[in-house]
């Protein structure tokens, strides 16, 4: 499972892997490419009611080995979760709640007055929440 917060200009904020060195490059590519799909989905929803937009985008696309899920906040920060396709324990609802949790902890990070938007996130509490989530899910 990998995870990305992506700022307005699609600058990578954080990529976290369960096993840090395992194919990290591949995750980078996968997640980066998925942003196209995210953009497509967001623009498909339309700009009529941005406030009531559903943040969770659902399954972006399946690849051979992974399922890629996306989530976009109102400020166009993108979260992407990549799940092993053999993992059946994670249903849509679980993924959705994971995103919610992630979003709230991300909001906490953003509320930190010492955080510069656009920087790589270096927050212990955020890290612990994310890693707890990943350990739990994997």
């Amino acid at each position, binding site marked *: 499972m990998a995870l990305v917060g992506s700022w307005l*200009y*699609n*600058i*990578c*904020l954080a*990529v976290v892997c369960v096993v840090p*060195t395992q194919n*990290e*490059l591949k995750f*980078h*590519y996968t997640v*980066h*490419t*998925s*942003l*196209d799909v995210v*953009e*497509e989905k967001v*623009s498909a929803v339309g700009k009529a009611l941005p406030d009531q937009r559903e943040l969770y985008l659902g399954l972006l696309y399946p690849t051979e080995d992974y399922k890629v899920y996306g989530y976009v906040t109102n400020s166009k920060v993108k979260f992407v979760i990549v799940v092993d396709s053999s993992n059946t324990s994670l249903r849509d609802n679980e993924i959705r709640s994971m995103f919610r949790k992630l979003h709230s902890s991300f909001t906490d990070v953003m509320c930190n007055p010492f955080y510069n938007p656009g920087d*790589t996130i270096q927050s212990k509490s955020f890290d612990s929440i994310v890693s707890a989530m990943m350990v739990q899910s994997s």
Partner: protein
Amino acid sequence: MAQCAQSVQEFVQDSFVPTVAVLCSADAERVTRRNNLSFPELLRPFCRLTSEGHLRDPNNLVVVVKGLRISVTGVNTQPLQPGEVRKLLSQAVSGCQPPEGLPANVVTAGDYDLNISATTPWFEAYRENFLQSMPASDHEFLNHYLACMLVVSSREAAPTEQFQRLSQEQHRVQHSGEYTHPKWFIPNTLKYYVLLHDISDGDEQRADSVYEDMKQRYGTQCCYLLKINSRAAAAGPAEQMPDPWSQYLQKSRAQSPVSPAVLSDALSESHPLELDQTSNLGYPGNPSVAVNSIDTSRKQGGLPASSTPVAHGACLTLNDHDRIRQFIQEFTFRGLLPHIEKNIRQLNDQLVSRKGLSRSLFSATKKWFGGGKVPEKSIAELKNTAGLLYPPEAPELQIRKMADLCFLVQHYELAYSCYHTAKKDFLSDQAMLYAAGALEMAAMSAFLQSGAPRPYPAHYMETAIQTYRDVCKNMVLAERCALFSAEVLKSQVKYSEAAALLIKMTSEDSDLRSALLLEQAAHCFINMRSPMVRKFAFHMILSGHRFSKAGQKRHALRCYCQAMQVYKGKGWTLAEDHINFTIGRQSFTLRQPENAIAAFRHILINDSKQVATQQSAFLREYLYVYKSVSQSSSDVTLPQLPLPCLHSAQTRVFFGHERRLAEGEKQAATHVWLDQEYDGEQAQLWAELEEQVVGVANKGSVPIGFQPTQYCLSCHTDNLRYPLAVVEEPIIVEVVFRNPLKVPLALAELSLLWKFTPKDFSRPPGGVPGEALSNEKEVTALNDIISTEVIPEFTIGPEETKVARLQLLPHKTGELQVLSVLYSLGTVEEDNGTTSRPTFVRGRQDLEIQGPRLNTTKEEKTSVRHGPDHRLDPVITPPMPLLEVFFINFPTGLLCGEIRKAWVEFVNVSAVPLTGLRVASTHPEFFTFGCAASDLTPVTPTASEHCSAYKTMATPPSVAATMLVSPAMFGVSGDDRPTVAEIPLVGGGLGPGEALQIPLWLRGPDREGVHEINFLFYYESVEKNANHRVLRHKAFICASRSLSVRATACHSNTLPRRGGAEEEGGSSMLVFVDVENINTSEAGVREFHIVQVSSSSRQWRLHTCINPTGDRDSRLASRERGKLCFRATRCRTQEGETHARKYTFADLNLGNEQIVSSTTPCADFFFRRGSPSEAQKGGVSVGGANHTRRQSLTPAGGADDGVTGVVQKCSEVELNIIVLWKAYVVEDNKQLILEGQLHVALQTVGKEACSVPQKEEAQEMVLLKFKPDQPPPVSRPTLEQLSRLIKTCLHYPESYDHPFPQKSLCMVPVTLTLSNCSLAQVDVIIDLRHKTTSPESLEVHGTFTWLGQTQYKLQLRPHEVQRLVLKACFFQAGVYNLGTPRVFAKMAQAGTMCETSQQSSMPALIVINSV
């Protein structure tokens, strides 16, 4: 998918064209060979028809054939083997590179601006070659031969027989069944007889006659006389002819411009079997056929055809071109199209006739019998049917044949219906290969129908591709199908479908195909309505990867570079590193080392998140590439190195020698050195000191352009001016390196790169500056001008920040510019036994320092502008004096007030004399060089080590010896302390190399604690207009507590005895000195001895010691306290005003040695003591004013101020006590005697003064005041002060015997002495009537009465003493208090004031005895 040169329709049409075989006789071949062409090649440029053709379909409708192209090939052209195809394709792709300098297409998508090549010619080349190399298949007829040209030369002896033979040959090839390869469309192939006539060579009439003969024999429609070679070959290249063949032949033959020979070799070698066949077995006795093979002809023609671009068609004129064109047209319109028309009709008739019966019957029976069978058909069986082969004459194939014919002549409507029918038949037969072919073509013809547009059946294509790939396992056909389909989808703006289709076609079996298709897919993504940039990038990377696997390095590099644009700078570091690394590798293998270096640089510069091993791999690769580049290039300028990071802004420059450390007892001045951190406050402090000393040196005024000297320039200093460096003095540049990697880096041969412009400053300005020199070529080459230090080795650990100090030593004057750091970069090799030296590469990094950001004008505020920074551009000036200062016996710890003698050595280490040596200090009271008057005996420091610092005289303790000293002698003028002291040098200066030692006295600071003492030595050159130089020294002194001295002064009531030697004005004072040992270190200091108490004042002096006890040497152990009492008298003042400024020093020694306090160093320190009392005095006066009781005084007038002054003077003392002590200290089992002096300034009578400055804790918290302070009340003399105007004293016998029995009244004479303490006239009223009112006193004393006048009025002049003789009358014996007279005093001038009661004197008790 990228844009193509052709439209889709054109592309499809050109892909499926009627093919015509050529069978050529040997003579005919020879004729064409003169043009370096075979006959098919000769025709090839003219195979596209420019005019429209017409034919009628079975329904008699006219079909217009537009832009038809026919394909003419030798009959014997063999299909290529798969391996050769692969080779051919790969060469086609690699031979076609993106054109250089073509304006790239800029695609803007979101935040991305991408430069993408709009066209992909390599893909088109690949596609063309791929389609051409398609082997003919049995399930379709599109590329089967429709006709055959039989070509015979007119020179042939018997052309007719030759035609006969060729015709038989053709028939044999088609029908004998021996040859599988050339596939023929229809059994009765159209034969077209061509008589080739060489105009320059042959007999034209004969040719015409043969042609007539042919026409009669074969019919006019099937014959043609082609006349070519109207020009003799010898005419040569004089005439420039267009060469329409080159493009075709280049493409087909010499695809790869690099090695056409290799290609031709490869082709010929791979056909050994075929060659044998043609020459020996296949066509025995018929050499004409064999020549058709390209390879053979090539062999015959010799190599020149391939190795050098031979001009084709050298014997052809433009007329010949026209003839050929006409020939093709004739052939097509009169031969081929009618033939096709005829065949379509035939096939149609066949089909129609069979349709009613056989086909329906056939299918009906099939349904009948097959109905039950269907469920039993297994997959395996279905697969078997995939390979099903129909016999050539099968009706299903006939319909397909007709469809193909229709398709070839662009009759798409009919073709579609035929394909559709055929598809149904094939599907029902489960002949999957056939079905797929029909599906594919049905879709194509549906797409190409121009009339009623049928929706393009994309699912047909999908099914076809799937079937080809999965069922038939025929990737070639699947690929062809996909190429067409993608092209069609693209034309219909269905990019995502096209991309999906292309991506699906990628597989492991062909890297080249996968790469090309992925690239096209990527182009599809970018061309979508909302461009999918990231998908584009990702597929580009995949494509690049495949390209590199396929050996197409150039294309791989291009793909990665295009993808890089998307990933760059977005934080996807791993991806970015990966791309950069690949780009670097590919660039290097493609001999683009500059790009490779740039790419590797990127990986290394940015904060890499890679693991250490990866980083070291990157680094090694980089170094390797870099090294090979630097070896190959002969550039003079060294390239920039990316590692380690150079923090230019933190560069510091130091001018001067490295600091010398202490040598034994000698301790060098700290000066400035790079190890010292910059401290803004300190810098400010030094600058102020320098300003002071410069001010003094310039007689009170600081020059306008004064700038404090800076020896160490950093980012904190002001670097606007060019710094000055002195010739033969080193310049040290400190650069900061940071290693961002997790692997250590090794630098070698680190040095500075500079540029130097020599300039002679002794000449008048405006001279031509010399030529600029640089040490770029050889680091140490110009060591005679500027010596450059080289650091041989310098290692930086992982993620370490390290500084390197590099030195330059200029030997000539001029302007220097430090440009960059030169070094060799290498890896640190782990010691694992390898003997190979780690690779080192030479390079540089420029020191570019940006000045501070400007922020003064509006433009500067709104934009980002930086000022200049010249810290690296020093000006080398002519030699200047250079001073070094050493301190000898300089202590680190002192007792408060301790006096220590140290020595200081001044050395002029330069070759220029120096003068004007001065020193400024933050603590001028701390040290003294002695006064000018004192003899500076050149005693060496060792000789005087254990002597007293003071000048002493052996005198027994007695009355104080006095000495009058002017403060000016000690360099003190006015009240302010001198912060700048001139250092007395012998002869006023120091010559080159001279050294001078002079004594220095130090006195421990009064406050305990650690004191930071700054010395700034100032000196200048003997020459005028030269700059001054300074030397800094910072000393730390730890002061520990010694003694605390408190002193109080009281008016003495005793009046001086009349006629005494010291009688002057009658004023004297008692001084009480309390001395307490407050030293806390019991171990160190054993005891203190008070040796002497001296006084220094302008008005008072200590007179005698009136200590009651005989304990003369007043010893004070720890925490002991002693008290000393002295009598002070007023000094003589008769000398007048000139002496008012002079100080009287009075020494009262308690031991047998008198310390002459009026000389160095005692007096020096006294004058330098500072005046801590100033503040106290102010405090007191304010406090006193606050306590003024509002008594019945009239409001103060102008005169009151004068009065106040006078009154205050009265109680002022201004007496300074100097307590000289000795301390016995045990240190290392040795007893040491330390000396010291403490100062106490007495100011007011009765007010205690202390040597230890009181801590003003009250100052710590100052209340914020929101209201302005009330103006202090007008100071007026307090009551207490007023009550001290007059000192009274009663003189009487202590006891008086009186015989009361005899005489009842006892009269005692009493003298009342009145002394005016003030400097003004005072009116005094003495009232004797006053009685003590306290009952207590009544009890104690009996009553007595004053006799005579009871009230006196006197006026006393300043300091006047008057005596009144009074008489007291006693009635009985007893003890009486005589102190009853009340004295009132009033200033004579201050008329408005009331008289104030004067302080009553002590109880004056008299004992009256009765005898």
